[in-house]
């Protein structure tokens, strides 16, 4: 299994962890979790679990890419939670993902369309889109976070972007209908 190791990231030797550096990562973790789950409370629960797990595994951490390490912990928690039946419960048409407040209303509607389409992507594709597009991780780091080969990252990125494009254009791919059946 791929793991985040210090040698993989040049220039990261000085990034040594202490409580303050972990606290500094919380806003990023919250943003990612919000985009991943589409739900404020669930996202913060996921962040809290991630922080607690990170502190519990502190002894295993070595100087390296702290952010990628935290994302990999969050990914593992997210996957194990998603396997429990409760969680494959993405917002239907009437339930809208919770988004941060924004000024103008047309803007807000457009954002909701976008967030709803994002929520309809399979989780594995959504994760890759977020790690690369929102968190700006390299493809290599995204592969490590998700413990998959880089080729898998690329194919999920490709399928995810294509599907999101179709959803935003109002063309819902056929297989998505299957998922929407309750």
């Amino acid at each position, binding site marked *: 299994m791929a793991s985040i190791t210090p040698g993989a990231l040049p220039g990261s030797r000085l990034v040594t*962890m202490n*409580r303050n550096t972990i606290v500094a990562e919380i*806003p990023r973790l*919250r943003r990612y979790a919000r985009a991943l789950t589409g739900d404020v409370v669930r996202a*913060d629960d996921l962040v809290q679990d991630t922080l607690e797990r990170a502190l519990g595994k*502190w002894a295993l951490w070595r100087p390296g890419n702290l952010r990628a390490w935290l994302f990999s912990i969050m990914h593992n928690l997210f996957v194990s939670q998603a396997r429990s039946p409760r969680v494959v419960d993405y917002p239907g048409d009437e339930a809208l993902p919770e988004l941060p407040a924004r000024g103008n209303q047309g803007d807000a509607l457009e954002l909701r369309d976008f967030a709803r389409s994002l929520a309809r992507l399979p989780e594995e594709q959504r994760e890759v889109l977020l790690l690369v597009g929102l968190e700006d991780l390299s493809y290599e780091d995204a592969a490590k976070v998700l413990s998959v080969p880089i080729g898998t990252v690329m194919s999920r990125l*490709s399928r995810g972007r294509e599907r999101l494009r179709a959803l935003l254009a109002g063309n819902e791919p056929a297989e998505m209908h299957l998922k929407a059946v309750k």
Partner: protein
Amino acid sequence: MNTNTRSIGEQELHAFADGRLDAARRAAVETWLAEHPDMRQTVAEWRIQGEQLHHAFDPVLDEAVPARLTEAAKPASRLPPLRMAAAIAWLAVGGVVGYAVRSSVPAAPQPSASLARQAALAHAVFSPEVRHPVEVGAAEETHLVAWLSKRLGAELKPPRLSAQGFDLVGGRLLPGEAGPVAQFMYQDARGQRLTLYVRRDTQDSGETAFRYTRENGIGVFYWLDGRFGYALSGEMEKADLLRIATAVYQQLNP
């Protein structure tokens, strides 16, 4: 041109959209896209997706972090690896900052920030120690004083802080930037600890005012007095620490 452009695959288009290509490949992809308007449109839409992601979720970064999350980032108990990691981080930062200070500030009689940082670091490392907080305990104070005075090459006497509620636990010798330094540790009835860090300087700097700083939650008052640099560290309110620092200063300068 054909040699550059014929091998453009979808992966490279994604890397292009994500800004991950070097200049040469980027130019090759741009050339190729100019001849393939359908794909140019697709790549543009991928980029818009990325902008929308930021547009939709970046405001989360500006939200106040719920207290429960900040709490969750606090270690439940004192974890040695955490403390050591923090100590190493400080050493690294201290080295960098210390270097920057040395190279940019002309020599002037002022207590350097490195005095405070080293003191706070030593405080962070030793004050949580349960079994070995000091090398020589207060029970052997005569020996402690003789030993540290000999190593620092000057007469040292730990101040009495019982009027402030703190008793001497003992002391230890530590490596400093320019030679040995002494650390005295005090503890109050609740187990709260203070450390007094004493460094001997090679030149007489006269006397300086108290300076205050906080290093990772540890408050430090530090000052120079003659050939000594002092730093009093504790995890307590500034006003309380100042009261004790004043008492220390008065005892050292009767």
